[in-house]
């Protein structure tokens, strides 16, 4: 994925990697490390919490926890790559695009996801995909685990009805 991101942007010039809270941030960190290993340059890394830009805030039950948003550099004219763990409905990415627009005008925004599970509800597609897993909408859930938060790295497919620590109104 790191190589694809570098290729996509024709190098690392003015590149900015932005992870979506929460697990997109860890994946973004690893991509930055991988790019540093291959290119020898530390690409700036940001984190975006899109909670306040969600389109379903009036309907979710308890208020979702808001995480920090940190963009280390001015995004104007940057080549921004948004990184998330799972791409599903596309609504998170829509929110992220809106939030980025409030910070400035990047020259290009691309999307990199570890897993694309299909089921889009908006016209959004990923430029870089780690793994495609076709799952019918409502046909279960894909959980990405990262060592930093979960103790191990894994992609877990939880079939519908299967419920091991399901999210409580976490995301649509």
């Amino acid at each position, binding site marked *: 994925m790191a190589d694809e991101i570098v290729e996509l942007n024709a190098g690392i010039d003015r590149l900015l990697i932005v992870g979506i809270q929460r697990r997109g941030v860890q994946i973004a960190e690893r991509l930055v490390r991988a790019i540093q290993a291959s290119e020898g340059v530390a690409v700036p890394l940001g984190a975006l919490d899109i909670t306040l*830009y969600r389109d379903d805030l*009036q309907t979710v039950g308890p208020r979702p926890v808001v995480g*920090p948003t940190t963009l280390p550099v001015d995004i104007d004219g940057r080549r921004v790559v948004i990184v998330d763990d799972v791409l599903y409905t596309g609504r998170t990415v829509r929110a992220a695009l*809106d939030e980025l627009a409030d910070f400035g005008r990047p020259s290009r925004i691309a999307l990199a996801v570890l897993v694309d599970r299909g089921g889009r509800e908006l016209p959004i597609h990923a430029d870089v995909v780690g793994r495609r897993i076709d799952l019918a909408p409502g046909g279960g859930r894909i959980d990405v685990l990262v060592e930093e938060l979960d103790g191990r790295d894994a992609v877990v497919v939880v079939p519908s009805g299967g419920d091991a620590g399901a999210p409580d109104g976490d995301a649509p």
Partner: protein
Amino acid sequence: MTAARPADRPRAAAPVRLGKDLLALEPLSSEQIQLVLDTAEPFKEISERAIKKVPTLRGQTVVNLFFEASTRTRISFEFAEKRMSADTVSIAASGSSVQKGETLVDTARNLEAMRIDMVVVRHGSSGAAQFLAERIESNVVNAGDGTHEHPTQGLLDLLTLRDHFGSLTGRRVCIVGDVLHSRVARSNVWGLKKMGAEVGVCAPRSLLPNAIDELGVEVFDRVEAAIEWAEALNVLRLQLERMQAGYIPSLREYNRVFGVTRERLDRAPRDVLILHPGPMNRGVEIDSDVADGPHSVILDQVTNGVAVRMAVLYLLAGGRPELAEAAKGGAS
């Protein structure tokens, strides 16, 4: 946007909620206070952005109903509302129908008839916010009611202290000044105690409530003793009208005996953090070189006030769980 919670993570305990209104800190649990403080944390960054605005409360109407004079609190609420994209109207008692004798409830009901979502109320009578909350559908935020509570001020004081100390547990915070008439003092005492801090109060006996000992706070008759004990002082404004009412003999004497001065702080065994809810009477309860000194966090309090109020608006507004239940089927 999948529900990307790992499968092997333990199910979270029942989520903490704030409820419909924020009326006081006394009835809140430490978890609820923690929730507001934790939520306020990421909101600080929004005020640092070039575009200081998020769309979260778009289309929601908030009315700031101020029956008492206020500059800082009202503007802080207005900024918080605007930075969350709410539509806001501020009404002061003077120049409104209140002057024509309209009651609080009638005013609020008329506003509700215009389809508002939230009321921020400041009123001279203790219990006014609660009274209102029981009678209208909108969310109610108490922005100070009589001598009862001023919960968002208490919360921003807690946030400022937490910024500095990391945790409030075991920290010694002393409130200095007119505790008897101060809603800020009450919100502080409740909030600090719930968060595990040790609380002291220091004032002339005439400005302390009779039942102060029942609150479980240390009482200091001398400000020197309070300074020696405390790690942070929250210095309250001495309202000038108290002198006319005979609570204290003179402002000069108050400053001589209870004023927080550089000389007194220099004798303290440690650096003491200085808070003041404003507006300050420089040279009365606090000296200028203390208010502007290196350990003063008075302006941090003002900055944090906006973040705390954004957090409160966020936690109270919207979030209708019955709709979430209905949407759950195909959503996640």
